[in-house]
């Protein structure tokens, strides 16, 4: 086989730099990130984990309508953001709230969608984070188009688009990968393979040796990486982002991780998987292993850990308070943003609603 082809195929096993017990795995092709960077990453993991817990609690308290947790996938969430520069763009999904927050979006704003106040709670241009996408794989095309515009203007922007293993089965995944390959776009497709699409296991999504094996079909390299190893994720994503920025084109990165909790609080995973599998993944936890590594390297001490925990608690408390504070979405907003200028028809309809509310006739839900 031609070398160029070989270069597009993933290795036989995912790239790993720190194993489950925190020991270094040497890989000639990848370089270990600086300890300082890993320490910084660990801080984000701690915060991410804490926010996932907080959000689950907020659902139980009825403060959030629903929360798709990234518990156990925090290394992917954090690495995706750390790999990007200021001017780069992130295209996240409903599961990637921790990534959105790591990118700088205030937690309370990130939660607007899941609280049900509005469809999205932040200005994408302010943080260079697209709205979290719900229709699977659709955002991958937006990412490709965004990258295409950047390329046409000769900008150095790189776009990183996230999706899950299930989303790779959608036609939009194919079309996005193909547009990126054909136009050689500065975009990184980052698949978090957590082995489930709600109840459906990976084996129902693909018969391929790995999801990364799809890349060669689009003329781009496919890389497999341990999705619970922040060091490996950073090394792999940095390389992909650098390639994209240097004009080297797109990369498909498949991170092998695991969905530790139910799809959302509304899901009952006891119906379709036995707990052993979940337990088995607990010792592969991304926080535990990085902590062990940093301890061995003496790159972290109790004070630092305490400080991180404190920071995370503070942020979580902020979020809790914000969610507990009553907000009252404004009905008029339903008409305000549909078009840059409301149509006459929407004007009429908004007036009718205003009038209805003015007559203070309550509009109870019919049950």
């Amino acid at each position: 086989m031609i070398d160029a082809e070989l270069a597009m195929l993933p290795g036989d096993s995912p790239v790993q730099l720190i194993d489950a017990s925190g020991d270094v795995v040497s890989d000639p092709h990848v370089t270990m990130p600086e300890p300082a960077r890993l320490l910084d990453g660990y801080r984000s993991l701690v915060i991410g984990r804490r926010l996932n817990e907080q959000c689950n609690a907020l659902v139980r308290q009825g403060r959030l309508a629903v929360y798709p947790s990234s518990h156990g996938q925090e290394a992917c969430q954090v690495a995706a953001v750390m790999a990007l520069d200021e001017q780069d763009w992130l295209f996240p999904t409903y599961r990637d709230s921790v990534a959105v927050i790591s990118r700088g979006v205030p937690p309370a704003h990130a939660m607007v969608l899941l609280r049900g106040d509005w469809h999205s709670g932040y200005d994408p241009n302010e943080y260079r984070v697209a709205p979290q996408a719900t229709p699977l794989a659709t955002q991958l095309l937006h990412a490709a188009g965004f990258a295409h515009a950047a390329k046409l203007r000769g900008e150095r922007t790189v776009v990183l688009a996230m999706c899950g293993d299930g989303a790779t089965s959608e036609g939009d995944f194919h079309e996005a990968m193909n547009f990126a390959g054909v136009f050689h776009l500065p975009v990184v497709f980052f698949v978090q393979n957590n082995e489930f699409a709600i109840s459906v296991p990976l084996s129902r999504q693909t018969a391929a040796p790995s999801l990364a094996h799809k890349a060669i079909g689009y003329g781009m390299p496919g890389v497999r990486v341990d999705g619970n190893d922040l060091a490996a994720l950073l090394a792999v994503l940095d390389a992909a982002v650098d390639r994209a920025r240097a004009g080297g084109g797109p990369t498909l990165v498949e991170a092998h991780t695991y969905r530790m909790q139910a799809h959302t609080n509304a899901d009952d995973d006891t119906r379709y998987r036995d707990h052993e599998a979940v337990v088995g993944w607990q010792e592969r936890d991304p926080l535990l292993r990085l902590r062990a590594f940093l301890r061995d390297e003496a790159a972290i001490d109790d004070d630092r850990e305490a400080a991180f925990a404190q920071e995370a608690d503070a942020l979580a408390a902020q979020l809790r308070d914000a969610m507990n504070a009553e907000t009252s979405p404004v009905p008029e907003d339903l008409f305000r943003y549909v078009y840059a200028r409301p149509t006459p028809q929407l004007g009429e309809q908004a007036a009718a609603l205003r009038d209805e509310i003015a007559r203070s006739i309550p509009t109870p839900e019919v049950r």
Partner: protein
Amino acid sequence: MTILHAEPELAAPASLPSTMTMAGALNRALSDALAADPSVVVFGEDVGTLGGVFRITDGLTARFGEDRCFDTPLAEAGIVGTAVGMAMNGMRPVVEMQFDAFAYPAFEQVVSHVAKMGNRTRGAVRLPMVIRIPYGGGIGGVEHHCDSSEAYYVHTPGLTVLAPATAQDAYALLRAAIQSPDPVVVLEPKKLYWAKGEVDTEQPAPIGSARIAREGTDATLLAYGTSVPVALAAAEAAQAEGRSLQVVDIRSLVPFDDETVMAAVRSTGRAVVIAEAPGFASVASEIAARISERCFEVLEAPVRRVTGFDIPFAPPRLERYQLPDVDRVLDAVDTLNWDS
């Protein structure tokens, strides 16, 4: 994302009338169809082991096996497109689109093939397949989980489109849909999944027939799916004010029961159409236009429409403003030229 919900009780074995939720009735219709006809297969996303995010397919894989009810790769065009091929090859596929907005990826397959194959082949290849779509709001769902997308389907010639409002009709119409030689889109009002009702599995609901849900003499309310309970509640409230409102449950959007609808409106001379979908170029538009044309000389007042606003569906905490409710219906009724 999936929404929280209870579980349907297990379908009662006897065929005697029994009380069940609409979800239970749909589940029962599927299992009865699977038991009755070996060519029926059920597939989609999470319909297997999980039993569907709304549990409509609960227990089917366990009872009928992986070959009769199974999960597919996550791809709606794939689900509908392979259903077309299965139907071409002698099966009666019943596929589930997980939520209304997640049926859109299959739109080309639905419009260009599902709806047209029978016509294309001069009837040589009929597609006896059913596309089940939980639709509408009222469950506090986030964006993309609450669309009322019926207009897209009813405007597409070749499709039969049903929207039941009761457990009884849910059972009977789904059974009829599965038996139909033509492709049927069944719009399931997810908001009513947990509403209970009497179900007599022996009582048919012919495709193409509307149902007089409540007798009345002063004006006619026309509704389907999620808006039927609204219409009935409005009629109940109007009663108190001494107004007698008739309620027609359209339930079969295509074919449309002109006979029953026009007879009903002629009997009262006044009409209000109630539907949750945005009103512009909608099913409500068609019903209003038909009535206005066919009952012109007997209409005492313009046909009013109480529909969703022409906006993307509202976020959960604002959805109550988007949904037609009793007060809006009564306000509309008040405008029907009562002193003419």
